[in-house]
C-alpha cells in the first residue's frame, strides 16, 4: 500500500538540494504566473506563495505515474531504477502536466493578487524571493535537508528586504509561522495569511452567490484556527455556506499529504470525503491546493473550486 519510501525520500532530498524544489522540474514554474502583471518587486511586505499551488499540476502528474507503479509488484524496484537512470521516466511524466491545471493554478494566484489589491493591501512580489517552502521535507522527516533549505529561503527573503510575508495556503502558512522560527536562527519575518489579512482590512468581496459546501483543510482548522475567516468572507460575497457532517475543527482530511507515498490510500480517503461533501451540495469550496487536487481527482461529479475564485466572482 506504501511505495518504496526510501527512494521517494532520496528523490526529494536530491532534487531540493539541486534546484530548491523536491521534483525534477524547472524552478521557473513557481514564478511564471506573475509574468506580465507588473507587480512591484520591492517592498517590505512580500507576497510569498511558497509554490504549492504552482507545483500541484506536477505533483498530480507524478501521482498518476506512481499509481501505475503502485499497481505493479515491482514498484519499488522501478522507482529505484528510474532514479539511477537520471529519472528519465519520472521526469518525462512530470514534465507533461495537464496544461489546464497549470492555467488554473495561475488563475488562482492572479485572483488572490486581485483580492489583495482590491482590499487596499500594499505588497510586492519579488520572483527571486519566492520559492518552495520545504514543507514536504519537514513532513517526511528530512530534517537536515529541510533546515538547509529553510535557511536559504529565509536568506533570499531577507535579501529582498522582507519584513512581512503574505502566505496563501495552509501548509506554507503553517511552516513559515510555526516551524521556521524553530529551525532558522534569528527568524524575524512576520507571517500573515491572506484570508486573515482580507478580514483585518474589513474587505467585502463580491461573488456570484448561491449555495456552496465548505471543506476545511486540517491545518487551517486544527493548527492555525482559520475557520471563521473564510466563512465570513464567503458570506460577505453573497454565498450561503453549507456545512458537511464533519467541518471546522472536526474536519476530515482530503487524503492529500500522502499522495506521493501511498497514492491508492490517498484516493480512497479523498473519495470518502468527496461523497460526504456531495451529501450537502455539488459546489465545493476548497482553501488549499492539496485539498483541491485530491478532491478533484476523486469527486468527478462535484464542481470544486478554490475560495479565491469564489471571492473574486470567477467561480
Amino acid at each position: 500500500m506504501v511505495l518504496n519510501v526510501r527512494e521517494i525520500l532520496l528523490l526529494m532530498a536530491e532534487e531540493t538540494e539541486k534546484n530548491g524544489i523536491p521534483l525534477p522540474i524547472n524552478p521557473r514554474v513557481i514564478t511564471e504566473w506573475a509574468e506580465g502583471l507588473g507587480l512591484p518587486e520591492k517592498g517590505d511586505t512580500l507576497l510569498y506563495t511558497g509554490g504549492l499551488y504552482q507545483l500541484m499540476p506536477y505533483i498530480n502528474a507524478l501521482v498518476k505515474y506512481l499509481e501505475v507503479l503502485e499497481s505493479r509488484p515491482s514498484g519499488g524496484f522501478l522507482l529505484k531504477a528510474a532514479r539511477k537512470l537520471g529519472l528519465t521516466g519520472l521526469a518525462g511524466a512530470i514534465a507533461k502536466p495537464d496544461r489546464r491545471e497549470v492555467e488554473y493554478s495561475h488563475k488562482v494566484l492572479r485572483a488572490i493578487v486581485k483580492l489583495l489589491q482590491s482590499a487596499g493591501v500594499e505588497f510586492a512580489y519579488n520572483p527571486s524571493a519566492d520559492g518552495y517552502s520545504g514543507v514536504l521535507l519537514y513532513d517526511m522527516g528530512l530534517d537536515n535537508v529541510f533546515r538547509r533549505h529553510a535557511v536559504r529561503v529565509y536568506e533570499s527573503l531577507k535579501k529582498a528586504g522582507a519584513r512581512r510575508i503574505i502566505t496563501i495556503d495552509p501548509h506554507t502558512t503553517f511552516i513559515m509561522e510555526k516551524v521556521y522560527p524553530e529551525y532558522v536562527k534569528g527568524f524575524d519575518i512576520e507571517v500573515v495569511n491572506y484570508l486573515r489579512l482580507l478580514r483585518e482590512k474589513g474587505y467585502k468581496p463580491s461573488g456570484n452567490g448561491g449555495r456552496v459546501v465548505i471543506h476545511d483543510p486540517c491545518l487551517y482548522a486544527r493548527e492555525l484556527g482559520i475557520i471563521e475567516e473564510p466563512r465570513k468572507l464567503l458570506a460577505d460575497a453573497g454565498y450561503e455556506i453549507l456545512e458537511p457532517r464533519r467541518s471546522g475543527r472536526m474536519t476530515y482530511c482530503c487524503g492529500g499529504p500522502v499522495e506521493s507515498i501511498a497514492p491508492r490510500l490517498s484516493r480512497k480517503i479523498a473519495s470518502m470525503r468527496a461523497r460526504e461533501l456531495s451529501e450537502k451540495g455539488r459546489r465545493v469550496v476548497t482553501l488549499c491546493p492539496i485539498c483541491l487536487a485530491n478532491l478533484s481527482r476523486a469527486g468527478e461529479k462535484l464542481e470544486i473550486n478554490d475560495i479565491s475564485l469564489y471571492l473574486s466572482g470567477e467561480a
Partner: protein
Amino acid sequence: MQSNGAEALRAYIRAETSKCMFCGFCEALCPTLYHGPHRGYGPRGRVNLARLIARGEASFTSDVVESMYSCLLCKACHLKCPGGIDIVGVVRATRSLYVLSQEVSA
C-alpha cells in the same frame, strides 16, 4: 519537534508515548485506519510502534515504515486523545529516526 540527533528524538518519543493508555479513542477519527491492512495504520498503532522503536525493541520493518508514512498528519486523533499526546509530533520524530537510519539526509 526539531531533531537534534537520534538520541534526542528517541527521548522525545519515549516521553510522549509513555502517556498512552491504549484507550483507542483516537482510532475512530483516523482516516487511514479504516483503509489500512493492519492497526499500524491508526494512531494507537503508530504511537506504540514508535515507542518500541524508541526503546530499541523494534526495527524499521516494512510494516513499521508503512505505518509511519501512511499518516496524513491531519491531527484528527489529537482531538480525542485523553493523554494529550502529540501524536503527529511522534510520527514526525519517528520518520526523522528512519531518515537518519537510512542515511538519506546527509
